[in-house]
């Protein structure tokens, strides 16, 4: 069942402090707006030293020798460590999240510009940085592989000669769907449209760069590590495996995190260096990378070179979608994705459409670029998949001369088809697409916009309307087929109600700004009737929270949100038994309404959850077999992913003289199932839409032919400001997830996934008078001008 709501702009109920779902200000914000957040770089420990990393200035070179003597003699320097020294400790290489290995410090070769070569630990960060300049590295420069399209050419330099028997730059092949069935459908289709579509390499660029403070105590063998991580528990287990420190002796603490967007999922060499630095010097060691280091060496996103093909009938029935993808994974395969999903969840490239066949073949290659591959709010490659399908559907609309909204409406999976198994095997849990699409069109005034466009075209003005309709797959995931390095993707949760009726809930997921301290308090409040203000949310410290895989892929609410609801129900079940004793009736005669049990048929006879908490901890009798206390813990294993969807409409104006694009309006209707705090949802959507403007119009990590990164500062790598974005117009529909305990689907990445195709479709639509059917991101003025002249080029 879908219910359609009017757009909600009012904030009138904000101060009502709902006991459960509803708009309320974020509990964490007072400390942020007062500058009292505590980030990794705020951690100061007695005797703490500072670490700086020497990075490769070139993309591909053999290391002939490293002379550290001058650096060692530099004032304030306590240690200089190279790859050769790490190799002696068997720490020069570490596993990546995709079963590849990555150099902590280069031993044999450097494989991308910015790769870690050595580190210095010194009394302050100035001394550490000064000493880096005194390290003399002799490089034997090798030809780099920069263009992924040429990585598999015979004679291409072999990047990964560290892998035994490796003679080329092939990383992996992957396919999904039915090749033969798809070919058969294409063969009989009236219309086939093919388009080459590139999703360029971009970077999450969180405001806080990555860093760590490592404090190893040689006496008791304990390691405390404050680090910028979205997944503290997963990191702790990996450190135990890599560094050989017993897991119970490792405490990973993620304090306030200044943005992640996937950038803080992987373990970076810098974290390991900080740990080694602390072990070597016997002191706490802080490493904070600078902006350039973050941009050139940490997890990038995208970098898919795609050929999309779509087959349809002449009257606009989509029959099949086929794609061939060349994936650039950089020098090491550092992709963070469930192990059995080397291309993440790219398999949802069939989109929101009921089609007969689909097939994808992917080849991934190594290049001399930074490793990573999944980041920037992408829901495990769904960003690329949605961009592909929503772009190619627009190409089909153009070919058929059909309105793109009409084409989409005609092909949607129908509500009665859910749960719907796609031709690539994904089981969409629920959806009702047409009301969402219709609401977006109504908010936009779609018909009127088309009329305006027609008038403007007649006057030579360039206006474009772009639509994207997405279905996401989030909340990884069922442990039977989803794990990261063997760790199942289920999440624990603990809830403890104190004697006075206040509570603490402990989570494994880690907020990077999403508002977990509020949302999770509201989830628990909804279930047990304790006001959110009385519920403390604890996260980010492995010593104080249950195990779980962390926050990425929009999984916090779908996985840990379910855990929080279920653990609260478990507590409520116990409370019911205690209440039955207090009210001297059987549990069957009790009814629950927010915050209290009362006797059926006698509402005056009731006990509140606070009364029950006191009794649970008090001296009086409890029903037979009931232990004291009021707390519970669980581990939630999702039975399926959740599938949020949304309809986005973008209106752009393009200056015909300068080719500058202005995003005039953006309408975003999201359906993330049950809505917990609408204000937080809107905030997530606003942020993601802004991300989308960045990627569509300006962001790209580019390289020159020597493999030099051309996006190494905020001056070169542009991210959007308030001046590039319109006032967002948001709306929503609600289609609850049938298997999620509270029906919530997650929304963290929806807008980042859905907005780039809407914006690109709008720009391409504006350029229709020039015969443009496709132009690749980023649509900078120069690139739009090229497209207007019929010279659109891929962004290399």
């Amino acid at each position: 069942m879908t219910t359609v709501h009017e757009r909600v702009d009012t904030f009138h109920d904000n101060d009502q402090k709902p006991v459960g779902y509803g708009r309320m200000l974020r509990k964490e914000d007072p400390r942020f707006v007062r500058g009292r957040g505590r980030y990794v770089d705020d951690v100061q420990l007695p005797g703490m030293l500072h670490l700086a990393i020497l990075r490769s200035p070139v993309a591909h070179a053999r290391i002939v020798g490293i002379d550290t003597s001058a650096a060692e003699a530099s004032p304030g320097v306590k240690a200089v460590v190279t790859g050769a020294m790490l190799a002696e400790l068997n720490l020069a290489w570490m596993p990546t999240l995709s079963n590849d290995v990555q150099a902590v410090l280069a031993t044999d070769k450097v494989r991308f510009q910015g790769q870690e070569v050595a580190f210095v630990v010194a009394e302050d960060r100035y001394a550490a940085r000064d000493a880096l300049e005194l390290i003399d590295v002799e490089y034997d420069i090798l030809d780099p592989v920069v263009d992924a399209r040429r990585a598999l050419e015979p004679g291409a330099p072999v990047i990964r000669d560290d892998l035994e028997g490796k003679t080329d730059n092939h990383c992996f092949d992957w396919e999904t769907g039915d090749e033969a069935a798809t070919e058969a459908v294409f063969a009989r289709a009236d219309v086939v449209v093919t388009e080459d579509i590139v999703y360029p390499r971009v970077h999450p660029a969180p405001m806080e760069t990555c860093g760590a403070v490592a404090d190893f105590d040689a006496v008791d063998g304990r390691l405390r590590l404050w680090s910028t991580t979205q997944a503290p528990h997963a990191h702790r287990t990996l450190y135990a495996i890599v560094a050989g420190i017993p897991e119970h002796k490792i405490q990973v603490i993620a304090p306030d995190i200044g943005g992640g967007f996937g950038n803080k999922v992987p373990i970076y060499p810098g974290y390991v260096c900080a740990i080694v630095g602390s072990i070597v010097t016997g002191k706490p060691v802080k490493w904070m990378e600078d902006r350039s280091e973050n941009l050139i060496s940490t997890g990038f996103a995208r970098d898919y070179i795609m050929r999309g093909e779509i087959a349809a009938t002449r009257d606009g029935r989509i029959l099949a979608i086929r794609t061939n993808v060349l994936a650039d994974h950089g020098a090491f395969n550092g992709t963070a994705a469930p192990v059995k999903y080397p291309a993440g969840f790219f398999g949802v490239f069939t989109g929101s459409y009921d089609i007969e066949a689909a097939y994808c073949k992917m080849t991934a290659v190594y290049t001399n670029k930074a490793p990573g591959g999944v980041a920037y709010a992408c829901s495990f490659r769904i960003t690329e998949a949605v961009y592909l399908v929503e772009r190619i559907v627009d190409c089909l609309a153009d070919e058929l001369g059909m309105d793109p909204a009409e084409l989409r409406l005609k092909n949607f999976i129908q509500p009665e088809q859910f749960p719907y198994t796609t031709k690539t095997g994904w089981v969409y849990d629920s959806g009702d697409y047409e009301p969402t699409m219709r609401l977006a069109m109504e908010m936009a005034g779609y018909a009127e916009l088309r009329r305006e466009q027609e008038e403007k075209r007649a006057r030579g003005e360039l206006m474009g309307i772009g639509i994207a309709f997405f279905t996401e797959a989030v909340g990884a995931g069922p442990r039977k087929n989803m794990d990261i390095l063997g760790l199942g993707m289920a999440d624990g949760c603990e809830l403890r109600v104190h004697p006075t009726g206040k509570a603490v809930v402990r989570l494994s997921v880690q907020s990077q700004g999403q508002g977990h301290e509020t949302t999770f308090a509201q989830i628990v409040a909804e279930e047990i009737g304790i006001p959110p203000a009385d519920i403390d949310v604890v996260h980010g410290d492995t010593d104080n929270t249950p195990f779980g895989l962390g926050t990425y892929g929009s999984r916090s609410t779908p996985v840990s949100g379910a855990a929080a609801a279920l653990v609260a129900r478990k507590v409520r079940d116990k409370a019911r038994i205690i209440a039955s004793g207090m009210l001297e009736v059987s549990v069957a005669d009790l009814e629950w309404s927010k915050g209290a049990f009362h006797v059926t048929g006698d509402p005056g006879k009731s006990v509140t959850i606070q009364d029950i908490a006191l009794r649970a901890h008090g001296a009086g009798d409890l029903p037979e077999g009931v232990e004291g206390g009021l707390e519970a813990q669980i581990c939630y294993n999702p039975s399926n992913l959740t599938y949020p969807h949304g309809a986005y409409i973008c209106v752009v104006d393009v200056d015909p003289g300068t080719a500058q694009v202005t995003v005039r309006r953006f309408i975003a209707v999201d359906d993330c199932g049950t809505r917990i705090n609408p204000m937080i949802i809107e905030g997530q959507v606003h942020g993601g839409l802004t991300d989308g403007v960045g990627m569509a119009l300006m962001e790209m990590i580019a390289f020159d032919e020597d493999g030099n990164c051309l996006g190494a500062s905020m001056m070169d790598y542009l991210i959007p400001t308030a001046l590039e974005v319109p006032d967002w117009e948001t709306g929503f529909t609600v289609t609850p997830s049938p298997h999620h305990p509270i029906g919530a689907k997650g929304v963290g990445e929806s807008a980042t996934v859905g907005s780039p195709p809407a914006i690109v479709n709008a720009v391409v639509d504006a350029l229709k008078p020039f015969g443009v059917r496709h132009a690749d991101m980023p649509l900078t003025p120069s690139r739009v001008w090229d497209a207007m002249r019929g010279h659109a080029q891929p962004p290399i």
Partner: protein
Amino acid sequence: MQVPAPFEYERATSVDHAIGLLERLGSTARLIAGGHSLLPMMKLRLANFDYLIDINDLHADLGYIRPGRDEIRIGALTRHRELLESAELATAFPIFAEAERVIADPVVRNRGTLGGSLCQADPSEDLSAVCTTLDASCVIRGPGGTERVVSMEEFHVGPYETAVGDAEMLVEVRLPVRPGGGSAYEKVERRAGDWAVVSAGAAVWLDGGVISDARVGLAAVGPNTTGMPEVSAALRGQEPTESLFERAGAVAAASCDPVTDQRGSADYKRHLAAELTKRALRRAAERARS
């Protein structure tokens, strides 16, 4: 956090003090005013100086906008924000406020200075294009209070290179005021606050409905901001019409020398040189008429 190499730092208490320090320390010293170009380069260790001489305390002496009958004199330490908000400047040369509105962001504009902008000599820098358009002259002071005055063409001797010597300092910029003038600024940037892909300043002086003089200053299409004498020659003595501006744009495009970079292709920049020249001239002429 990016940290610069070690340097020594002194705050100048007077212009002569600053010049005296420069004279003593030579090319190992650098003046710092707003610091918005210098400090990032030092943090990236692209520029390393042994000494920084901070002249921000001299704002009382060098931060001013003084309108006169024949010229407006602007002190080198005048901040972007002061240029943006000056009513006198807006009346005489609307190009200033138009350019300032698209220079970086308020935080940068609160601190960055006119002198610093010109001395950085970045070919994409907006105020250099403005001063080129307005035929500004630059007052350079040396040891012993000696002063020399150079034109913008002489001031910029190459990318990131000026006529200011090791023991000298830019102290003032002078803008000639002539009757019947109008000015405007056009910029294309990839994002608010970015350096120009191309920008164009234009100033037009009318006499009896005919262009008595016109100047165009283009940024980001050559080694320095370019004065475009060919464009001035094409405009002088003509009636200000759309087709004339179109022709002037074509001359500007033909006379400039852009290169392909991350901000855009050389072809696109040449196209913009024409388009923005045309637009800036159009608005400058409208203002000259009114």
